[in-house]
């Protein structure tokens, strides 16, 4: 009996595979800059042994975990250290979310309201007295600038200006645009549509899209996260099975959340959609690699850029797709920066109590950006974009926007007719 057990036993999150080698502790960006956090090994598998005996051992300091998953990337034994920590928070966290955390996490609600009155909202949250009140009353750090809200949502633009012509293509994809594209930066969505159309692909919205829920999970709003996740899984499943359309994205964090956190943290079944959900750079790279599409670049395009690998991009192991795609651009000199955390981690860095930690974590990356001194930093994560723009003054672009800028869209469209 024992012999058979040893052949088959697999523990949740590979918990029992932890050798106590401590390599994860070398790569934790949080414990590198603060002693308030017990570190990934103690917060994760070591602490879990105690918590299994008695929940009393739960340590509130686990909220300082960024959920960057760099411990999981470093682990030679495949232990899902970050997932163990997230689940411990979900199971044991003593209190519900604060008003501030609910506001930061409710991206759909706040975004929908703000886009209605975008100029006023953008103006107001930029005012010094408003920032001071948000800082002292709500605990949203005064150094932060809220990403500006767009006056027209991406979905609205798409329905008005793009939807109708998508039917003329032979091949089709669905686009999970995410909150950032919808409420703050529709241009990235427009770039995605332009690039995919040039490649001969029609782009479609999902039947129903909700915020992926990454901020809800981070802020302890698990019930709402699960409901939104179920809506997204259903919509994606419809796209994949009914419409035969794979789902592409332009945000590494939304992608990671839906592919991995839904299953590992929220305990949802994503088997029917996971393999059909991909970051657009990966989808496009594979099309090129398989010889299904061809690209034509502008001959006058000359830029110097630096690629930053976001934490969740590193965890997914997909930076190679964005980097290889960018390397195809003839006029682009691309520096690949050492992969390290920028410190923002979604809503984490917006909180007053985390501001200093957040900037200390990012300092290595900021120095690397300054040293490379590119015209533009490229990254697949929108919150890294805010952090790098605020902390280095450099412009930050998504690889898809770079591609839209570098491609000769008409010539590319002609190649892919």
């Amino acid at each position, binding site marked *: 009996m024992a*012999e058979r057990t*040893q*052949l088959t036993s697999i523990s949740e999150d590979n918990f029992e595979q932890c*050798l106590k*080698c*401590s*390599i994860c*502790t*070398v*790569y*934790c960006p949080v*414990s*590198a*800059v603060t*002693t*308030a*956090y*017990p*570190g990934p*090994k*103690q917060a994760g598998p*070591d602490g879990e042994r105690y918590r299994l005996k008695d929940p009393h051992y739960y340590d509130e300091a686990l909220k300082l975990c960024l959920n960057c998953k760099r411990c*999981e*990337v*470093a*682990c*030679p*034994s*495949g232990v899902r250290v970050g997932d163990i920590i997230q689940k411990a928070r979900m199971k044991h966290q003593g209190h519900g979310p604060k008003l501030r955390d609910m506001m930061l996490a409710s991206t759909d609600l706040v975004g929908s309201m703000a886009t209605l009155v975008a100029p006023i909202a953008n103006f107001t949250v930029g005012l010094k007295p408003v920032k001071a009140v948000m800082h002292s009353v709500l605990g949203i750090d005064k150094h932060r600038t809220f990403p500006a809200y767009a006056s027209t949502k991406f979905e609205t633009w798409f329905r008005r200006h793009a939807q109708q012509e998508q039917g003329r293509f032979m091949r089709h994809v669905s686009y999970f645009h995410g909150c950032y594209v919808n409420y703050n930066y529709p241009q990235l969505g427009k770039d995605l549509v332009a690039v995919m159309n040039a490649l001969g692909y029609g782009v479609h919205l999902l039947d129903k899209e909700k915020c992926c829920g990454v901020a809800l999970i981070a802020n302890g709003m698990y019930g709402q996260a699960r409901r939104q996740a179920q809506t997204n899984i259903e919509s994606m499943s419809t796209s994949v099975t009914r419409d035969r359309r794979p789902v592409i994205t332009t945000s590494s964090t939304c992608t990671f959340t839906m592919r991995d956190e839904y299953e590992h943290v929220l305990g949802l079944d994503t088997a029917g959609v996971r*393999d059909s959900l991909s970051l657009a750079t*990966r989808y496009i*790279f*594979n099309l090129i*690699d398989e010889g299904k599409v061809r690209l034509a670049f502008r001959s006058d395009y000359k830029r110097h850029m630096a690629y930053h690998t976001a934490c969740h991009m*590193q*965890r*997914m*192991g*997909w930076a*190679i*797709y964005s980097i*290889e795609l960018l390397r195809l651009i003839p006029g682009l000199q691309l520096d*690949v920066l*050492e*992969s390290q955390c920028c410190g923002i981690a979604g809503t984490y860095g917006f909180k007053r109590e985390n501001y200093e930690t957040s900037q200390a974590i990012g300092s290595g990356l900021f120095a690397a950006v300054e040293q490379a001194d590119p015209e533009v930093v490229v990254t697949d994560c929108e919150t890294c974009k805010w952090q790098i723009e605020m902390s280095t003054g450099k412009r930050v672009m998504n690889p898809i926007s770079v591609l839209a800028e570098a491609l000769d869209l008409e010539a590319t469209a002609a190649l892919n007719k």
Partner: protein
Amino acid sequence: MRFHTVIVGGGLSGLVAGVTLARTGKRVAIVSSGQSSLHFNGGSLELLGALPDGTAVQRPLEAAASLPEEHPYAKIGVSRLPQLAADAAKLLATVGMPMQGDVSVNHYRLTPMGVAKPAWLTMGDYVTLERPDVLPWNNVLLVNVAGFMDFPVNFVAHGLREMGATVRVEELDVEPLAARRASATEMRAANLAKSLVSGSAVSRLASAINEVAGDNDEVVLMPAVLGLDDDHAVTMLRAQVSKPLHMVATLPPAVPGARLHTTLRHYFQMLGGTYLMGDTVQRGTFEGNRLTGVHTAKLADTVLQADNYVMAGGSFLSRGLMANYERVYEPVLDLDVTAPTDRAQWTRYGVFNQQPYMSFGVSVDRQFHALKGGEPLDNVYAVGSILGGHDPVKMGDGTGVAMLTALAVAQQIIDN
């Protein structure tokens, strides 16, 4: 996705093979399931410390002639060892990791337990001894950081006293290291090193050391808690401390090994190499005796295709080899493994005794082609700790085998 060579495993042997190939302009990818066992390395590389019967070795190149034919050095050919060893030292200097040591005669490194062990190359700032039982100093000042537990200072002091020195132990209670005590679980060498980067932090440490250093102290030894990314902090500290200063490796994760890993990886990436950290090769596709592609957990349907594949996944610790109650196996390609089928013969009584499983490994021919189903594969090689035929713990030859087999195979791939 196409490469000239795909290397499975990103530790010492994988990186050495990768750098060697990438330097000739080849397109190379390394896939690494997490960080490597180099993080256990204390700043020294070893060529050969003892023969299989336990006889201590002083002159490794000469002693290699008497190794049994299953030893990886014997497979390389003893006549090629001097050149490969020279190439290895040169490669480390090129990537920015100059080492001290003479290939013709072993020196000795000092372990975190205060024991002298034979070594071939040691990082510049670390303790090296000419003999295992005699120190070059009579009076040693051994300092530790207050509250730092990954440096068993009493063992080190005991070891040094056994070698005839008078040892004084001092604890340093100095910022910013003292603040680290607030987190007992995270007061580790790497985190201390991250606090000791700026000039002001290093200067404060130097002053604290100078304060406790007495006139009689000939040398200061301290745990390796600085220099995680490069040697700037160590160089600054040595310039400011009034006595000669050397590092002693701590318990893992060890700063010198992490630095060696990072330095090699940076150089590989600087050459244009692709390093896939945190991904795992799960299986391969074969056509006859050729491997045509490998699949990873993260890249899913994107197949990594290459002309050559190098298996450098390490031994049991790194999961390059695995065992369950039924068999010892190589988990990626199910390559042949040299190991007895009877489980009772895998281990021997007494954990510190020579253990048979330490010599298990992937079966290879004389060119290090891996065997599968008894036949050598045309384009799959095995290098480093995944190889058997020797006991790296008892023989003190693990890192030497890693570097030399990696260089030999990379050279062979280039020549083809």
